[in-house]
């Protein structure tokens, strides 16, 4: 087989042109997922697009006065998870604090979105929007829609509206390199509404919003009562990490825990404990 054609993009325009409609192109941001596939011969791409020099790692914060809630963070697709964890509000900061130090410093936001990573859950709860390129040109989509069908798109950046408060809770083993068993993100958005998302429901399954829980909360239900509704919003599956039965049992507990930690509107306290197994 011929060697892959490798483009090391030195600008956004070059990256977008090399990506085209995405067919046959393997994109490398940090390379933490793709590199082992190349090394072990599990992937022999026709064309490779490397984003490191494309200027996609910037983070812009529209809010400078330090108020909690309001303003938008625009995070470039090639920003590392370490950089995201440093600047992002909860629940995104805790979601980005994946194990371990070295991987966090190399893995990127765009890559995490494309592989069904932990950040999806936080971004869905926060109502983020994804700017991407591909067939038909540039597009901005709500993150929940984007991650449901991400193929053929090159993530350029993610717009993250800053919530008033947020909590990220996950069920995972410390420092394990597997996906978490479950992730839960809750965010009280700038308009005061509480939004809930869950992820890791199955191997590589996209994170989903939980309208039944949100509806119950808006109707005045307490955290536990509202959290119980989460089973109406999800279709957990069996995978090597956990069974669907286990996920259905644990999820309401995690959602309740996240909601209980979310401060009332206007509160600035953010907390995100790690749940042991």
């Amino acid at each position, binding site marked *: 087989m011929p*060697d*892959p054609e*490798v483009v*090391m993009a030195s600008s956004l325009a070059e990256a977008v042109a090399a990506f085209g409609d995405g067919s046959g192109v393997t994109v*490398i941001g*940090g*390379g*933490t997922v793709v*590199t*082992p596939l*190349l*090394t*072990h011969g599990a992937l022999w791409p026709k064309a*490779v697009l*490397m984003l*490191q020099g494309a200027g996609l790692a910037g983070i812009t914060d529209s809010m400078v006065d330090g108020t909690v809630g309001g303003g938008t963070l625009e995070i470039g697709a090639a920003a590392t998870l370490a950089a995201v964890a440093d600047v992002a509000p909860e629940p995104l900061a805790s979601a980005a604090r994946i*194990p*371990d*130090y*070295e*991987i966090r*410093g*190399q893995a990127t936001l765009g890559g995490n979105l494309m592989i069904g990573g932990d950040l999806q859950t936080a971004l869905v709860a926060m109502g983020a929007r994804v700017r991407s390129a591909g067939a038909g040109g540039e597009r901005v989509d709500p993150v929940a829609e984007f991650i449901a069908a991400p193929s053929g798109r090159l993530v350029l950046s993610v717009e993250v509206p800053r919530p008033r408060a947020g909590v990220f809770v996950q069920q995972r083993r*410390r*420092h394990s*390199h597997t996906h978490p068993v479950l992730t839960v993100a809750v965010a009280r958005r700038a308009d005061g509404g509480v939004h809930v998302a869950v992820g890791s429901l199955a191997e590589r399954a996209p994170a989903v919003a939980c309208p039944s829980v949100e509806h119950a909360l808006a109707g005045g239900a307490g955290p536990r009562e509202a959290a119980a509704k989460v089973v109406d919003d999800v279709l957990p599956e069996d995978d090597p990490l956990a069974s669907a039965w286990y996920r259905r049992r644990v999820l309401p507990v995690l959602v309740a825990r996240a909601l209980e930690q979310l401060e009332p509107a206007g509160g600035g306290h953010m907390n995100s404990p790690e749940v042991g197994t």
Partner: protein
Amino acid sequence: MNLIVNGRVHTTAAGPLMTLLYVLREELGLTGAKAGCQHGSCGACTVLVDGEPRRSCLALVGTLDGASITTVEALGEPSHLSDVQVAFNEHYAAQCGFCTPGMLLAATALIKRKGGPVERDEVVEALGGHYCRCTGYVKILDAVVAASRGERLGHMAPLTLEVRPVEP
């Protein structure tokens, strides 16, 4: 593609999709970075890239033009160990030694980052991606904390290993 490896410029013949681990071990004969799991999980291939610990098995040559690489070979020598190496020796923090180069480099970077004594939980966090199958970790944590405080037990005989530089 040029890399600066342990202070020397190296022009690599490897393509952009080869790993830094390959360049170090196969081109340069620097075998301190270990080829363990080769998918980023075990930490044994960790080196410093521009001062930050990185998995050399996940670092593609195409992303490293002009980068400065430090491997365990440049950390100290048998006759003049670095502080972290002394602490590992004094605290019996190495047994089989396979994970030790990665541990040493990650710990060295942590202490430099913090600029002073580090707490035990900071070491746990910083070394969380490094697997050791021998020591049970306790002695490694002891060693890194001691090194960060500049503590020396001074009870070990000086190392008398013969230095045999590897020809690149």
